[in-house]
């Protein structure tokens, strides 16, 4: 379950964005979210009933 936070090659932390792909999250954290991998994180959150969290993600 524990995976490293997203870092750039220079070791800088990168924040998740509205357009982060679900496949990226699935790969990073070893989970299957049961939707198409090319779906955007923001869209996924809206569909799952978390519109406010989606709204907080910068587009």
């Amino acid at each position, binding site marked *: 379950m524990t995976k490293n936070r997203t870092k750039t090659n220079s070791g800088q932390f990168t924040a998740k964005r509205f357009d982060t792909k679900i496949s990226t999250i699935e790969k990073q954290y070893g989970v299957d979210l049961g939707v198409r991998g090319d779906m955007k994180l923001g869209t996924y959150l809206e569909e799952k009933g*978390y519109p406010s969290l989606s709204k907080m993600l910068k587009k």
Partner: protein
Amino acid sequence: MTGSNFPFIEDSILRQNLDESFDHIVILLSFSESATYNDAAKSSFRKTMIIYTASIIEALLFHIVDTELNEKDLAVSSWEFTNKKVLYEVDGAHQVVAGDFKIKVTEIKKDKLNLQQICDLLKEKNILTEPLLGKIHEIRELRNSQHIGSTRKVRAFSRKDLENAFSVASDVKSFVKAKI
């Protein structure tokens, strides 16, 4: 920091702490939506996300206290009774006394403020008002359910609880963004 979700926060350390907490929420949310975990585990993930969300709300509101209020604004006055002299002892549980009863001003250290005190201060200064204030208190109480010692039931945290916390955090984020 690339692509911050809190770009309006100029303090780079606060911004990074906010982003890392927010990122952790997104990670935990993926676990809570995955079929890998059972309902009890998902409820626990949601509980942690609510605690993290409340910490984001607290940090954003503290940022207003830190930037808008000075030390004098943080001083609180309360009555203090000193130099007690017993004038008459009625019985073992009752005395008639005299003494000094004065207003004492105490400074509150900014870094010791909790969410309740931050809300009280911002309310007193007419910075934070209803209905947002009431919504923040709801999330504060939801977060306080982490104190399981005095809880009389096993609480399960639902998607609705979580979305409610996110909704308040989103409102607070917009409120703070507009204030600074």
